[in-house]
């Protein structure tokens, strides 16, 4: 057992820290701390420029092989990168869906032509991606998607509706889970299509959330088109690809995110020191509990990293999403309780619509943490069935 990172990894961490420190100044000083959950609407243009700066420096997709434009960084280094990124309060990524989800999926399952076409613009941060999975009637039960794709000549014609699509309003492309054969059993008639967003057949409508902001969108496909080559994996073999993408979703960026959470906890501790709540024994207990919970989140991530390096992803890795979602949600409530009488005060003048404070956004947005990317209930099913070997829920045939 050795909990220290080696000298190479520490050198890499120092390099990333220096680069972020010197580049998050001048024109990019203002994007510090912007974007990310609850603030995804902020400063899109400046953040897009920042993403290009990241790409130029080779930091957009560091874990990818060099032939795809990455640095072939180890998983440890990817995690260190995400930690430093969070520590520096660098802006929430716009390109993370391409860099973290679609790119790795293409690398694993795409054709050579797809790799040549789609990977370089992700590395350069020229093309942004969004994820076309959930539908009004296919949430946790994802394999029930109804969006249809029909092959006409050398194109796919897509018709249907997606929902909860993060960043669709600024994305260039969407990977869309579509039904391509309605006669096959529901898991077997699906395909994984890559669809351009800037076309007449695609209509993006922002969903106004309880935060008053719009990170998520509805996306309507009405005869949208994409080329026949834009299917990843076999036609009607998209379910496996879709699941693989979900597995990437729980990868390095999640393991590295606890430093962003640490910034939030520290701001709450700072408020408690100022407003006297630091003397309240109940609040002290809860803050210490949050501190312990966050430390353990880091330790769980290190154990998962060790398992992944050993090439086996043990059942321990299944707990990550449920753990952080619950922790983060209770941090949001703790923030309000520490603020006490001031918790309800929004920012700015008394004009409608209101602007929420960062901690109010945390409080509200964390209600979604336990829902998106596999709700707590789905996570518990996965843990119980795959991790503990309990019998599956009887499903209607």
């Amino acid at each position, binding site marked *: *057992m*050795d*909990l*220290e*990172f*080696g000298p190479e*990894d520490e050198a890499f961490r120092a390099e990333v820290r220096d680069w972020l420190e010197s580049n998050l100044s001048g024109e990019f000083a203002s994007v510090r701390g912007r974007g990310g959950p609850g603030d995804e609407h902020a400063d899109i243009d400046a953040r897009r420029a920042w993403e290009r700066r990241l790409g130029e420096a080779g930091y957009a997709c560091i874990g990818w092989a060099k032939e795809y434009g990455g640095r072939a960084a180890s998983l*440890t280094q990817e995690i260190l990168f995400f930690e430093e990124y969070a520590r520096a309060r660098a802006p929430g990524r716009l390109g993370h869906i391409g860099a973290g989800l679609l790119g790795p999926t293409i690398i694993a399952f795409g054709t050579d032509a797809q790799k040549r076409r789609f990977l370089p613009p992700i590395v350069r941060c020229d093309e942004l991606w969004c994820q076309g999975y959930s539908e009004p009637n296919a949430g946790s039960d994802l394999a029930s998607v109804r969006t249809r794709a029909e092959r006409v000549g050398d194109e796919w014609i897509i018709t249907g509706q997606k929902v909860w699509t993060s960043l669709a309003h600024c994305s260039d492309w969407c990977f869309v889970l579509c039904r391509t054969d309605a006669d096959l059993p529901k898991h077997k008639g699906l395909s994984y299509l890559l669809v351009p967003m800037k076309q007449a057949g695609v209509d993006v409508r922002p969903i106004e959330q309880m935060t008053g902001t719009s990170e998520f969108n509805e996306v309507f496909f009405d005869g949208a088109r994409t080329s026949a080559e834009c299917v990843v994996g076999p036609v009607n073999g998209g379910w496996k690809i879709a699941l693989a993408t979900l597995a990437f979703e729980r990868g390095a960026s999640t393991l590295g995110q606890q430093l962003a959470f640490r910034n939030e906890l520290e701001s709450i*501790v700072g408020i*408690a*020191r100022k407003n006297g709540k*630091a003397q309240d*024994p109940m609040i*002290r*207990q809860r*803050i*210490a*509990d949050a*501190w*312990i919970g966050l*430390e*353990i989140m880091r*330790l*769980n991530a*290190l*154990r998962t*990293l*060790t*398992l992944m*390096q*050993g090439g086996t992803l043990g059942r*321990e890795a299944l*707990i990550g999403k*449920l*753990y952080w979602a619950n922790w983060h949600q209770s941090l949001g409530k703790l923030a309000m309780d520490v603020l006490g009488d001031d918790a309800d005060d929004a920012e700015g003048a008394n004009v409608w619509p209101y602007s929420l404070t960062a901690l109010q956004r945390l409080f509200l947005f964390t209600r979604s943490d336990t829902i998106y990317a596999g709700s707590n*209930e789905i*996570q*518990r*099913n996965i*843990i*119980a*069935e795959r*991790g*503990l*070997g*309990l*019998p*599956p*829920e*009887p499903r209607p045939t």
Partner: protein
Amino acid sequence: MRFAFSEDQEELRRGARRFLATSSSSERVRAAMATERGWDDDVWKRIATELGWTALAISEAHGGMGFGWVEIAAVMEEAGRALLCAPLLSSVCLASSAIEIGGSDEMKRALLPSLADGSATATLVMSDDVRVRTDGDALVVDGEARHVLDGHTATWLLVAARAGDDDAIAVVSGDALGVSRRATPTMDATRRQATIRFDGARANPLGASSVSKHAIAVAMDRARVALAAEQVGAAERCLEMAVDYAKTRQQFGRAIGSFQAIKHKLADVFVRVESARSAAYYAAWVAAHRPDELPAAAAMAKAYCSEAFFHAASESIQVHGGIGFTWEHDAHLYFKRARASEAMFGDPAAMRERIAASVVFAPE
């Protein structure tokens, strides 16, 4: 960075599990519980001679194995899993360690070899109602201490108390004149406690009074780490029993483990057991390699693992239903151990307050 047991540490753990499967089976635990001393001397002799666990925390210079705290955690995890009834926590994890840190060379030579070979045991006595005074070179102990872990059987009692203006650790023979002791009945019968009365009992100082306070603080933190590891092993066993039962128990024509009400309960237990494991292993690594970080790491592990174990033991009873409420089933043995160990060496609230005071709200 490698956050997992090494192959040697895994082997140590596997060996412990094999040994305890028979030597600390449910039957053997229940037999030990029913004895006056509360533990089986034959098992203890085998632990000392065949496995060498009594020597784990003792340096090689004094007849020990000089193992680190990660190894001790591996053994304690298995001891917890099997609810081993033995003075492992008191004598090996707490007292031996206090002697290693705070003992003079002379006292180490006098005490450690017999603790290492298991022919003697020791425990730590801490009580506000015990006073130590000096009498020439010797110490004299008076007063009463309750809740002394394995205090009724310990060969040596290490009494930590104020002696005038100093801190002292007085070493009293359990059989000394002026010592009367009795095991007290405890709800958790797998680990005994004693009430000890000292009436002018003669003692020797363990070491220099200047290091006494430090020795007790570090030994207590290490013992918290060992106890946290024990809680992890026991919690995991509670989860296993519940999962196995949920797979086989049929109601409404299906295994009850196919119902989400049961699945979700057990998934939550799993999350806490695995998180407790991260905390305990980390604290063990810190105990071995990062003395400055030990107070926070030990507090974190003790707070989290205590609650994880109690949660696992509670939910195990619930999933077992009526059978889980019977004396015949082992669920209550774990539940009672969970309750007792939660309070031992500082309860979760005290541990959290320590973190609040020394880390989160430490003076800037």
